[in-house]
Structure formats: C-alpha cells, structure tokens
C-alpha cells in the first residue's frame, strides 16, 4: 500500500471535512480519510494528533467523551460553528486554487 504524504494544510481541511457529518474519534478520522481516498491517503499518528491539537486550540472542534465500537471510553471530536465556517472558507479557497492549477496544467 503506497503511503502518500500530504501537506498539513490539506490535512486540516480533510479532518474538518470528515467531521462535518458527525463526531468521530481520532482513529476513525484517520480511517475515514483512508477509506474515502480509496486507500490512497494514509494519515500518520504523528501528523494527525498535532493537527488535532492545533484545531482544538483554534476552537474549530471540541472534544467530548463517547464509547467506541470496541466499547471503550474515548474522545470524540465534534465540529463547532467556527469550525464549520472555517471549513466553508477553506473549501471555496481550495476549489478556486484547484481550478486555477487545473487550468494551468491543461493549457501549458
């Protein structure tokens, strides 16, 4: 399985995006990104947790206690209002930049 590194800005965007549909715990976030990217993207612990801490500090997510599928008490991360706003902003930014890059790649 090839491991593709990604820039940390993109990781934040992905984390926020996968949390949009509901609260998840750390492992589930990594899994969800892995699965949704058709097993291309692999989120390392060493990148995930620092990114989560940064997002917590910014106030885009909050943490709450929940029960995991293995019946263990773990922390779930939930998107806040500020996080939702941030996600919208980043998505539209990303879209614009992506399109711009695409058009350069197509024409050049």
């Amino acid at each position, binding site marked *: 399985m090839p491991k593709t590194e990604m820039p940390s800005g993109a990781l934040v965007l992905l984390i926020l995006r996968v949390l949009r549909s509901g609260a998840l*715990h*750390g*492992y589930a976030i*990594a*899994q969800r990104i892995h699965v949704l990217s058709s097993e291309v993207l692999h989120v*390392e*612990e*060493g990148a*995930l*947790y*620092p990114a*989560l*801490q*940064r997002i*917590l*500090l*910014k*106030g885009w997510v909050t*943490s709450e206690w929940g029960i*995991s599928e*293995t019946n*263990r008490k*773990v*922390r779930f991360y939930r998107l806040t209002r500020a996080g939702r706003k941030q996600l919208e902003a980043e998505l539209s930014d990303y879209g614009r930049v992506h399109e711009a890059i695409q058009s350069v790649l197509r024409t050049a």
Partner: protein
Amino acid sequence: MNQFFRRLRYLLNRRRFDQELADDMEFHGEMAARAGSANLGNTLRLREEAREAWGWVWLDRLSQDLRYAARMLRKSPGFTVTAVLMLAIGIGVNVAAFGFFDLIFLRPLRVRDPATLLRFHRRAPREGYAFSMPYPEMAFFREHSRTLSAVLALNPTKLVVEGEEKQLKTSFVTANFFTELGATAKLGRLLDPARDEAAGAEPVVVLNPAFWQRHFGADPSVIGKTIHLNGRPATVIGVAASEFSGLNLDDPALWLPINQEPYFAKGSHLLTDFSGDGGGVRMWGRLRPGLSPTAAEQELRSLAAELRKQYPTGVWENESLPSDPGGYAKSLIIGDRSGSGSEGRRDLYPVFAMLATLSLLILAVACGNLGSLLLARGVAREREIVIRIAIGAGRGRLIRQLFTESLVLALLGCTAGLAVGYLVLRSLMVFTEIPAWLNPSPDWRVMVFAIGMGFAAAILFGLTPALHAARRRHRASVARQFLVGAQVAASCVLLIVAGLLGRALTHAMSTNPGFEYQQVISIDPGLARHGYSPARAQAYLDTLQSRLRGLPGVESVSLAFSPPLGNRSEGVGLTVDGRALNVQINRVDPQFFQTMKIPLLRGRNLMRGDPHAIVISESLARGAWPGQDPLGKKFLGEDYTVVGIAGSARLVKLQDSDSVEVYFLIGTADLPSTSVLVKTSASPEDLARSVASTTEAVDPGTFPEVQLLKTGFRRKLRGAEASALTVSLLGVIAHLLACLGIVGVVAYAVSQRTKEIGIRMALGAQPGHVLSLVLRQFSGPVVAGLLAGVAGAAALSGLLRGELYGISNLDPITYLAAIAIFIFTVAVAALLPARRALRVDPLRALRYE
C-alpha cells in the same frame, strides 16, 4: 472563548489534557494493531510534538533545564562556590556603589509625601545665589503664598549644652516641622504649631534619639525635665522616632522652635533681620495638590518683588526663587552655600562617576574570571556534550541548557551580591559619619540593579562559553586571552588609582600645605548671631585682639572672614584661556599673612583704608595672567587692583589643586561674622583654654567656639583617608581576583598541553623553552592589558584632579610603583602554576595515550 483563554486553560489543566492525549493515542494504537498495521512510533516523542501546538513546551523545557542546572551545580560544588563568590564580589561592590547613589539621589526621604516637598533658594543677577534666606523673607512667603500649603524653615546652629564639653549641632525649626514631615514621637510629644509658636510659649526642646541615648542613657523619665542650653533653661517635651530623617544631613542633637532662637542667642536679630548676617534659614515648601513647582516659583518671584518695595535693601533686585525637589538626600547636601556666578552643584558627580567606573572595573575582573572558569568547564564537559548531541539534542537546545546554568549561577550571584553590597555599604556608613536614618538596606531599585547586573554578567560570560561548547570549536583560547587582557587592564587601572589616592594622602600629611596650621587657633565669637552691629563688633574685636596679644606665647593675631580649613567658603568659578580656575575669596586684615605664615612674594600687603587693593595667590597669578606681570591688573571688576602676590595656600579646598586664592581687605560690614586667628609659639592645646576664657570674658553673653586648625586639618583628611582606603581595598580585591584568574588559566593551559610538553621534553626541550611554551600565549594579552590599563588610568584619574592634594594625576612615581607591583605579582601568578609544566614526567605523559 478565544485562543488565548483556551491556551491558558490548557496550561492550567495540563496533566488532564496530556493524559487524554495519551489515551487517544493508546486507543489509536490498539485499533491499528487490530487492523494489522502495528506501526507504533515513539509515542512519547509523538505526544511531545502534539503538545507543541499549545505553545507551552518552553515552560516544560525551562523547568527541565533548571532542574538539570541545579543538579550540575550541586555536583561540582568547588566550581559553583568559586563562580558565585566571583559574582558576589563583582556584583556586591557595584550594589554598594549604586546603593549609595540610590540613597543620595534616587530614594525619597522618609517623610510624608516627599514628592511635593520643594527646597527653595535665592538667585539674582547681581548677587548670585544663596541657599539660605533671611527669616522675615521666609515668613512673608509663608504668610502670603497660595501655591504652597505650608512653608518649613530650619536654622542650623550650635549651642552649649550643659554637661557636654563641645558645642552641639542643633536646629531651630518652624513649629510645623514635625507635623508637615509626618514625624512621630518615640517618647512625649513633638513640636505643635498651636502650642509652641503662640506668644508667650515656654522654651521647649525635642531630642534626637541618638542624643537621648548618649546624653540621658535613654532615660524615659527625661520628659518634662529642664536642660540648660547656652545657659538658658528649656523643657524637654519629647524624643523623635529613630527613623525620622529630619532635613539635615548632619544629625542635630536637638530641635527647638525657631521663634525661641533669640531666647537662647542673646541679642539675636534672626527673626527680624533682613541682611541674613546672623545666619538665615533654609526654606522648604509643601506644594498644593495639582500645582507644578514652576507655579510656586512664579508666585514667590512676584511676592519677592512686592516685598522688595517695602524692604529694598533686604530683597535682591530681580530676585527669583528657584526650587529643587526637596524630598531627596541630595537636597540636604547643599547646606547653606552661597556665591556669585553659577551654582557649582555638580561637585558630587565626578566622585560618583569615579566610584561607578571603579566598581564596574571590579565586575569586569570578576566576570573575566567567571568567563575563564566557564570556558575551562565547557571544554572539560565536552564528553558530556558529545553524548547529548549523539542521543539527539539539538544545538539550540544545548545552548539553552548551558545558558540556563549560567542564569542559575547569576541568580545565586545576585543574591550573594546583594548581601555583600549591603554589608559593604553598612560598614562604610558606620565608618563615615552618615546619619543613622539613611537606611542602606536595598530597595527595589537596588534589587533591579543587582538582578540586571547579574543577568548582564551571565549573558556576557555565560553565553560565549555555551556557544563554544555547543559548536565544539576551539576558539576558547582566543577568548581566554582576551579575558586575561581585560582583567589585567581593569586591575591595573584600580591599582594606579588606589596608588594615586594613597600618595595624595601621604603627600597631604607630610608636606607643608602653604600655610601654618599646627600652631594656629581659630576663634568664632559668633557675634552676628547675637545681633552685634558692625560698630559694636569692631569694638569687641579690638578689645579681644589686644587681650589675646597680651597672653603669653601669642605671636600674632588676625581676622579672617572665612577661617582656614573651616566650613565657610566663598568662591567664584572663572575660565581663563579655557582653564578652569576655582577662585576662593577670603576677606582678611593685613596681619593675616604673618599669622598664617603665608609669604608675600611680590608687591605689598593689604593696607587699612585701602579697600580696593587686593592680594592674589601665586597660583592665581600664573593661571589668570600667564607670562605677564599681574601687579596693577584689575580683577573681578574695575574696582579692585592687584597690589601683591602671596604664596599659594589652599586654605579652604586643601585637596583641590585647581583652587586659587584672592584676598580682600575685610570691611566693617563683615566684622560681626568674622573669625579671629591666633598663632602661638607655645603648645596650642594648652593655650586654647586661656584663649577661650579670655574670649568669653569680653562678652559673657556670647558663646564663642575655639578650635585648633590642626583638628580641622585632620578632619579634612579623614575623608581622603576613607576614600583612599576604600579604593585601595577595591584595588587589592580586583588585583587578587585578576591574579587568581591568571593562576587559573595558566594551570589550565598546562594541563591541556601535558602531552605536548611531555613529547617536547622527551625530545630534549630545556626548562626555559617549556616555560615560554606555556606562557607565550599570555604575554601578549598581559602586555596589551597593562598598556590599556595605564592609558585608562591616565584618562580616568583626570576626574580626580580636584581631590589629589596637589599631586598630579599623572604622577610618575605612582605609575611606576603600581606597574612594578603589577608586573611582579602577575609574574608570580603565572609562574606558580607554570612550574607544573616543568615537573611533567615525559614517560607518564605519553603513557596516557
């Protein structure tokens, strides 16, 4: 909740957050293991990286560094004690010097609301300036001022106290003195404006606690007792609290209400006299809230103009009343000075500048030692550093760690330095006669200063070795050479300055100051204080002089307005061809030169009836008219003509070689304030008694003060002794430190090169060659330091010109002697450890490999 508060919340709940993170990661690991990818990194490290997001990692590292530093310092107590001792000496000396400066210039007096207290003096274009003013003028201001809520006045004087041999310093003060300054009584009560200033009030006296202790043995039943002052009874009403500072730097024994002054000094016109001849008062004002000192100055100026309409002779033309902040000790140093021209109030600054430079030099030497010590230690710790780099410590982290160690040292040094500084200042204050209420314990300014010093030292001398150690580069020997040079220079300056002061002192004690002081008695009859008119004073002085001449052993009697070696001085600063001349004015009668044994070199003496003729000193002649004949020249305006040149004699400013003299004929108006000088061929101690009784007999209502000039001379020298002793002590400490430093670096150099020396000796190197091998690297810095030190001392000692009793600040004997001592001690300090190089056993040195 914004980011800052989240960050703070994290800091406060750090343990919980960290535990949660650990749980998260543990769970992640479990799940990953289940999924079959057991890819666990270093969780501790991952956690630390995750924590970094919160921005508190530095705090953890700091506490880690501090713990580690403390452990390292504990592990090598020899190093720690030496380093802290160096810092304690270096910082301590500076703390003492700064503490003194702080006491005089920065720390407010311990009186109520010192910030609104103003000290006023008089100034006018024609008369010059005076720091005391006539009582009635002060009273006028007190009555009419709207900008000042209170006016305080003080008249310092001496009184004969029953049971005391000498006259004691006392202060007559306005009755609001204690209440305005917020003083409390230790015993009884203090002066009360309502009771003690009323008409017909009883004469009362407040005791200084020190006097109460000494004179009454701290007897609490003293309140209500009667004490005779100048032979007049007064009732003791109280003892002031020990911490009361008052407004004199020379602690008075007693405070009395000023309206009682005529009661104690028979015939005194102090309260009514505008001339100020009987001594005026020092005046302070309490500024009303919200007003500026300028407003008060403007008001007093217009009040003075108004008063001048009534008393044109009393108030000066265009008189202004400039103010100084009155709540600091420096405003008390001024005393009663008066003079024409500008106010030379900067007298103290050169002394402080000198003191500051010398103590900074000591710090430089101490820091130099510390630096070499740290450098050597850095090299010795190389192994440890290599290991730490090998297990993953970054360079920045390593520098921070080493630097933290220096900071911990600095903190210890600061604390020890504060203690040393306090002790030094305290013992200095016991040695000199500084009043007890000046409290030398450090205040926040001194603390900040000490901490600043300590940290500056740590940064300068801790960072470089830390950088070297972390880079593992051997620039250390260059740094070490520089440190040796700097130390040598600093200690050389101190040695030379100490030598100059010591030599000035021996010079002053052993050579003739240009006038006779051993055999002369001075008498201050204090006529002005008793309201003598010039005519009465003339009669009194004629009688006194003829009676004194009749005493056996008396050779000569004369009058002088400012008696030699006394506290009164009149001066004017002149600049001739860019050279500053400190002209001391004296008014004398024609017998003065004979009495003081000052030779008349050229021209003629002063003559009665010719008040426009003046005699100048040879030093003034040389300074004002170099290469010309001064006889017949006009001086200080068109009125005065130089008729004679006398030998140079620094009668007032013994220590200042720039001081020159001019003598006017004493006028009739000066007589009530004049002193009488008596030269005797017999023992002056024996004669003093009969001189005193003869003087008292002329007018039993007066209280003349009889003093031997010898005593005044010794008193003047005591200050010089104190400063010479202090600077010598500083010099010896600095030089000792520098020598210790040299011993240290040479010993280190030997131990570093043991192997090389062994090889050279095995190949047949001679002892001389081996020694030069070890010492060569230090000879350059030592010579450079010596040259820099001599140059620095030559420049710095210029500040001391006025204190050297006529010794040149470039005195070759002192310089040569200091350099000789210096070279000898440095050579010993270098050779002692270098001898170890000769005892190196080549076989053993080589076997180490």
